[in-house]
């Protein structure tokens, strides 16, 4: 699936980030994370709560400063960006947030919220033009003129999330980080948002970093998937590789825990438990490519085992 010729949109190399460094509650949220995101793809990121997904996403947008490592966007190192470059970057990379409620300023109308993005993108101040543009944005996410003058609290969760998406789109970004954009939404509207994201990607050629809890959705939407555990990336591969040929025990356990809406399968379902203690055995582990594009965090000896297993499947 992966096209080797595709351009790297984002390259993350050996990023480590520690919160409250030097204090008692020091917390290594990201530990030597490396991966790339290619132009036009959807990279899915999964992992349990607190594994560092959000931290990673925000670091890519330069909302957090990593301790070490580098993050490049379109070949440019983001930590070294100057004011003007940063302005350009801000327009190219955008974010959709988990909690649609919290991501909208309750004191502004929808048109003001969208207008903020237009301002930052240097959109002309002309009233009529602006109104049209806002309408265009609203329609893009399935809302209409009626909604422009309303306040966020009047909308349902799904609608709010779509407003958040419209705001991100106002600056015409190339790259969008969606941090659990659906986990706060009701089942019945999750599909609306997911479909919208897919549609927008098709229409505007967007690149996504899609972060989610819901493995089924990640699989559905992503080209490639990375699995994060305790700040470490334990496995990367195409959606199929990770889903059907998971190698790392954590990935396996995670997948086995996902319930499926199918009583027959579910009732026979067996959950694999995961003992994370070996992660702390002090051995050095590296990302090893066991198959083209499929990486696992492993010691050399573990890597051998994984490779064997891989061969069995094939």
């Amino acid at each position, binding site marked *: 699936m992966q096209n080797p010729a595709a351009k790297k949109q984002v390259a993350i190399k050996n990023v480590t980030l520690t919160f409250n460094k030097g204090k008692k509650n020091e917390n290594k949220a990201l530990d030597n994370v490396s991966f790339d995101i290619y132009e036009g793809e959807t990279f899915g990121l999964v992992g349990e709560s607190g594994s560092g997904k959000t931290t990673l996403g925000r670091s890519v947008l330069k909302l957090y400063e990593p301790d070490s490592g580098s993050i490049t966007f379109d070949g440019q190192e983001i930590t070294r960006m100057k004011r003007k470059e940063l302005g350009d970057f801000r327009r190219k990379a955008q974010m959709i947030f988990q909690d649609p409620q919290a991501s909208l300023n309750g004191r502004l109308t929808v048109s003001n919220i969208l207008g903020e993005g237009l301002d930052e993108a240097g959109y002309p101040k002309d009233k009529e033009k602006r109104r049209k543009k806002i309408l265009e944005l609203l329609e893009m996410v399935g809302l209409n003129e009626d909604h422009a003058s309303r306040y966020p609290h009047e909308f349902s969760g799904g609608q709010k999330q779509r407003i958040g998406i419209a705001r991100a789109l106002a600056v015409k970004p190339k790259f969008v980080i969606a941090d659990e954009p659906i986990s706060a939404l*009701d089942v019945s509207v999750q599909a609306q948002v997911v479909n919208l994201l897919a549609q927008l990607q098709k229409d505007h050629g967007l690149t996504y970093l899609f972060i989610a809890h819901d493995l089924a959705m990640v*699989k559905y939407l992503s080209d490639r998937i990375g699995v994060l555990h305790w700040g470490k990336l334990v496995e990367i591969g195409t959606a199929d590789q990770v889903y059907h040929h998971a190698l790392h025990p954590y990935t396996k356990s995670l997948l086995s825990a996902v319930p499926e809406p199918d009583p027959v399968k579910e009732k026979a379902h067996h959950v694999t438990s995961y003992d994370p203690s070996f992660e702390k055995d002090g051995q050095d582990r590296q990302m090893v490519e066991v198959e083209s594009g499929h990486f696992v965090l492993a010691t050399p000896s573990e890597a051998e085992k994984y490779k064997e297993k891989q061969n069995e499947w094939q």
Partner: protein
Amino acid sequence: MQAPILQVKNLSVSFQTYAGVVQAIRGVDFDLKKGETLAIVGESGSGKSVTTKTLLGLNAPNASVKKESQILLGQDNLASYMEKDWDQVRGAKIAMVFQDPMTSLDPTMTIGKQIAEPMEKHLGMSSKESEKAALTLMKDVGIPDAEKHINDYPHQWSGGMRQRAVIAIALAAEPDILIADEPTTALDVTIQAQIINVIKAQQKKRDMSVIFITHDLGVVANVADRVAVMYAGKIVEKGTVNEIFYNPKHPYTWGLLSSMPTTSTALGSLHAIPGTPPDLLYPPKGDAFANRNDYALDIDHEKQPPFFKVSDTHEAATWLLDERAPKVEPPMEIQKRQAYWRENFVKEG
């Protein structure tokens, strides 16, 4: 067939608010048999929690239960209970596990004591006995090193452990019915799986009936014997778990099932229910789902559908089941499921 231990008839609950009267529950009927698990699914705000809180008399002070509502626990109509009568029911006959384990425990009391509390009250145990019993119970719900942790305070525990403690509290006075209101929503999938197993194991051990509320159909598929699907304060379809998953009749159930991707759903083929749920301050006069329903009939916009019986155990409230209604093609995903139904279940039946 065994008589149900709990019967809810025509339950209606409304809330008085600043903005007006919210008709949260609008005539709900269901029953619960001994030892079975009834799952209630439905989207946020559809009234799942209000329904179950009403079963324990725990609704907010601005709630009022309509007079004709009946909640029959054996011979007693709980709907007519006064505040003091409830103490016999809560914990002892019906117990509850809440959604958020992080906030459900009293932060200033040791977990051991919190588990022991209902034992002392309902089983008349001394504090010594109850401590011992609490310890056993903690082990039952899978808390490792229970002896060491019995005097811990909640903040010292992780979310998954706390939810186990909450379950232990619910089980403490050996209730007949356990209500679990989204007990796993706040948890990671791996922890969710563990919690579900704990509940299932305890249910089996104690021969309890369980009402399991969730909006995750995957969980429903795992735990439920029977399923009730709620929408906008009403049950729209109920049946055995297989009937609901493989032979659903209500367009909302269709929508729900087909809006969840499975590992094999191809990109672009996910079905989405359009629009947003109705505002219960202004309940629509027809079927509440009509203006999101691709299969709505003209009458749906005008008149609320009654329940139509599909089988002894299966009912759905949709005009599509009326004999006058046109035949419609459900979404692809549902057709697949119905095919599976015809293959695996109809023959046997």
